[in-house]
């Protein structure tokens, strides 16, 4: 690892000031569970690390029925996994966190860091897309809020400008008659996902589909929301045939990258199976 300077600002305001000063010479570190491996391989060589891991201002989980949940960016995976509020209102999020990497990673790694490192196989983003989450970004000119699916740009790249930080994840209250499911394919517990899929359905009183969300990980350079596949269900009663149709459309949207673990073709086949299974599971969860 190359040498770098280090600063640990005490507030968000101070963090933005430091980032505005150092611009692209600076890199933010939170839990560093991915970043340190990148630095150890000299794939990145920042002049200065801006450490926000101990920024308690961004370490919180709140919920109210009107605005839903707000999770500060430096909240650890473990805090999300074990939060009674998360378990009550978004059990799927707690369930995913319970299987994200290892206990050690979850104890130190942060939910915001997971999104900002923008590893295309990341578990967190597809669920947040299915949950219609937005992200709050803070910079020198104030705040902006974006839908989760607009946050990622490319491999290891997000919309964050060099003087901005991800401050908060906002998840709206889940509509009645909604089912959400996520699962991932991997070889050994603790491994990064190879592919994964999150599906959410909300039904009308008459049982037709009011809203659908489909998002996958490991199937493109960014977490992939697939609106064309979602559109298949709108206003219709969800059947196995419709699910099959949506799965085929989803497959066409995927640009899987072959790697040492699996070929692109294999990943796409598995991802389609996961979309199908999660669609059926989400539907089965609606009361």
């Amino acid at each position, binding site marked *: 690892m190359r040498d770098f*300077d280090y600063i640990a600002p005490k507030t968000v305001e101070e963090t933005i000031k430091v980032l505005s000063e150092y611009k692209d010479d600076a890199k933010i570190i939170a839990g560093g569970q991915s970043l340190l491996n990148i630095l150890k391989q000299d794939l990145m060589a920042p002049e200065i690390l801006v450490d926000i891991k101990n920024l308690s201002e961004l370490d919180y989980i709140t919920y109210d029925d009107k605005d839903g949940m707000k999770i500060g960016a430096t909240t650890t995976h473990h805090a999300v996994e074990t939060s009674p509020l998360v378990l009550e209102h978004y059990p799927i999020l707690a369930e995913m966190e319970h299987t994200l990497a290892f206990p050690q990673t979850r*104890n130190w790694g942060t939910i915001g860091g997971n999104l900002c490192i923008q590893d295309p196989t990341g578990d967190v983003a597809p669920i947040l897309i299915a949950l219609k989450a937005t992200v709050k970004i803070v910079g020198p000119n104030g705040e902006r809020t974006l839908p989760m699916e607009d946050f990622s740009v490319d491999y290891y790249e997000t919309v964050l400008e060099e003087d901005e930080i991800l401050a908060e994840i906002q998840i709206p209250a889940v509509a009645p008659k909604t089912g959400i499911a996520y699962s991932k394919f991997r070889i050994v517990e603790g491994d990064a996902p190879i592919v994964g899929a999150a599906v959410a359905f909300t039904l009308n009183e008459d049982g037709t589909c009011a809203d659908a969300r489909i998002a996958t990980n490991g199937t493109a350079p960014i977490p992939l929301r697939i609106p064309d596949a979602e559109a298949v269900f709108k206003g219709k009663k969800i059947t196995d045939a419709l699910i099959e149709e949506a799965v085929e459309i989803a497959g066409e949207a995927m640009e899987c990258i072959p790697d040492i673990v699996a070929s692109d073709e294999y990943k796409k086949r598995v991802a389609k199976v996961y979309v199908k299974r999660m669609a059926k599971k989400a539907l089965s969860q609606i009361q």
Partner: protein
Amino acid sequence: MKKILNFTLNGDPYEVAVKPKTTLIELIRDEIGLTGPKVGCNAGACGACTVLVDGKAVDSCSVLALQVEGHHVETVEGLADGEKLHPLQEAFLDDGGYQCGFCTPGMLMAAKSLLNENPDPSIHEIRHGLSGNLCRCTGYVRIIDSIHDAAQRMKKEGGES
């Protein structure tokens, strides 16, 4: 340029000057001289470097030393109470929970973290709690049995850790 770091290690306060790129395990092993935690993969995958920060297991190879400013760090060296071994250590000895010993300090600290949170884990919960720790001797069954045994011993002692 070195920065000043204040933290506690096994209950003792430390003030040390460290380079920003120094990882927590490099500080603990190379500068402070406690060689319990091991460098296995140095990439957060094997758990041999596991220490507790504020009672929770972390991979000390994947934390910058400066990030534990103001935190409490515990290594395997802090587990025993003087000459009296911790129930986890006793159980590992009695139940054959280690073979070559390389992974043992990390296993013990991951187990301690698990028991801090869940004093009476099921076998499944122990396996999940230890999923971040590899044993290249593959002696997992005895390790899991040892942790289960330790939890029972600690319950008998009145939950004292």
